[in-house]
């Protein structure tokens, strides 16, 4: 793989919630213009990682750099400026429930630009067209299916033409058709808008289909990174079990237990 320019750099990041260490000394870099996937089992803190990158959470130690800027050293104003270059697709869509589809997509444009209403109208329709929901512009968020909400949220996420976009578990709980649609959208948007996409997910098939670069996180550590060809070559260990969905392996099928003979004694 040729060496791509780095957009986001995470160095020795440590973060804990209460007693629990979620990330323990993680170092990784996310290349510009590619789709990078961060994979790991449920509860491994993938969403937390996105929030750390976007400066919504502060790490215990370690640094995050975006385009060379030290995210957690920035003032509140500077962080908000930086976030204008980011789009984020939340798991639930996180649409504003009191606005309809059109107004949701228009929202960042109206808040951050002084464009006349006709231009906003045209821009919003273009963004909705890109996600295939121009026909749904008058619907309220409560009238949308989960997949449609995510697509509207995606249209909103790209409304200000960000340089990078973060996807938080985009495929969870979606039917195969919606998954297919989302895979296509993530791919097309990344290529046509020249975005840098960061995807956290545990849906192996979809990720393998679109990701240029994959990082696997488990128990707070980065345990593997590389292109999918590299990762798929592993024939043992955690990565092999995870990518192939095997029930037993380094993560045992059985919860830690006493020997059978011991347990049966008291039956």
């Amino acid at each position, binding site marked *: 793989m040729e060496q791509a320019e780095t957009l986001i750099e995470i160095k020795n990041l440590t973060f804990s919630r209460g007693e629990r260490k979620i990330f323990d000394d993680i170092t990784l870099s996310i290349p510009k213009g590619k789709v990078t996937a961060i994979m790991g089992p449920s509860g491994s803190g993938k969403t937390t990682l996105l929030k750390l990158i976007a400066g*919504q959470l502060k790490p215990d130690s370690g640094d995050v750099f975006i385009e060379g800027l030290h995210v957690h050293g920035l003032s509140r104003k500077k962080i908000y400026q930086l976030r204008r270059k980011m789009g984020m697709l939340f798991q639930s869509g996180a649409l*504003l429930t009191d606005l309809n589809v059109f107004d949701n997509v228009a929202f960042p444009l109206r808040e*951050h630009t002084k464009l006349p209403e006709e231009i906003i109208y045209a821009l919003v329709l273009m963004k909705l067209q890109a996600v295939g929901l121009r026909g749904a512009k008058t619907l309220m968020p409560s009238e949308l299916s989960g997949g449609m909400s995510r697509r509207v949220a995606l249209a909103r996420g790209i409304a200000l033409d960000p340089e990078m976009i973060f996807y938080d578990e985009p495929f969870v709980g979606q039917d195969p058709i919606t998954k297919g649609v989302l895979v296509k959208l993530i791919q097309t948007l990344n290529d046509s808008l020249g975005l840098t996409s960061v995807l956290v997910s545990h849906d192996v098939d979809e990720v393998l289909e679109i990701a240029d670069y994959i990082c696997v996180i488990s128990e707070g550590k980065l345990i593997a990174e590389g292109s999918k060809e590299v990762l798929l070559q592993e024939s043992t260990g955690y990565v092999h079990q995870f990518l192939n969905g095997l029930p037993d392996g380094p993560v045992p099928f059985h919860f830690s237990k006493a020997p059978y003979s011991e347990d049966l004694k008291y039956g």
Partner: protein
Amino acid sequence: MSRPLSGAQTLLQGLGATLLDKLAAFGRGFLLMLSLVVAMPAAVLRVDLLFKQVYVTGVLSLPIILTAGLFVGMVLSLQGYNILVDFNAEEAVGSMTALSLLRELGPVVGALLFAGRAGSAMTAEIGLMRSTEQISALEMMAIDPIKFVYAPRFLAAIITLPLLIIMFNALGVFGGYLVSVSWLGVDAGAFWSQMTSQVDWNEDVVNGMIKSVVFAVLVAIIALFQGVNAIPTSEGVSSATTRTVVHSSLGILGFDFILTSIMFN
């Protein structure tokens, strides 16, 4: 490892931990209030957001405030008449009703109802906005939720509660008139003239309004604080809503005593 703690020690430890938690919560509440005050100019400029919140907190609270005001005034004058009539002083029922409403019952009952109607809704809405990641989404869209969500609600409460309480008082006086004059036969002229001669603008009306502004700040800050700090689950939001009503009710009653002792002593 240190040796195991005795019962008294654990009790003391628990007490200390709870106290520290409460102190930290007070600190966070104070910081929230500071950031709201800083965001006030921005909230004033966003007339669209402010109007919407004035509608939600104020206009939608009108039915309950007006109905309650009417009945409180009616009951007050009925009770007052029954006592005053023994001393042949039933004409004083007008001034008694107006003074009780303006000084105490208007601000206190109005604010209690406001906490139950608008305060709880505010907490539930913000708690749910957090649990559905709408607040996070705003932050990610580089929109400050303090300016966009919290400050307009705070300002709207400060604008609407005093107005609601003025209407509560007006309806209360009207209810008193209905009961004492139309029903019990007190002379209408005496009813109004006693009232106008007894009620002082600064002493009664202005002091009552000062109370209502204080209560508005109190209810709004508690409601916002509980919403912002609600655990983002259905259980968390429901208990935060309950806490808003309980804390603001107790706060209103406590502050009312303090304010009364300063104003009318």
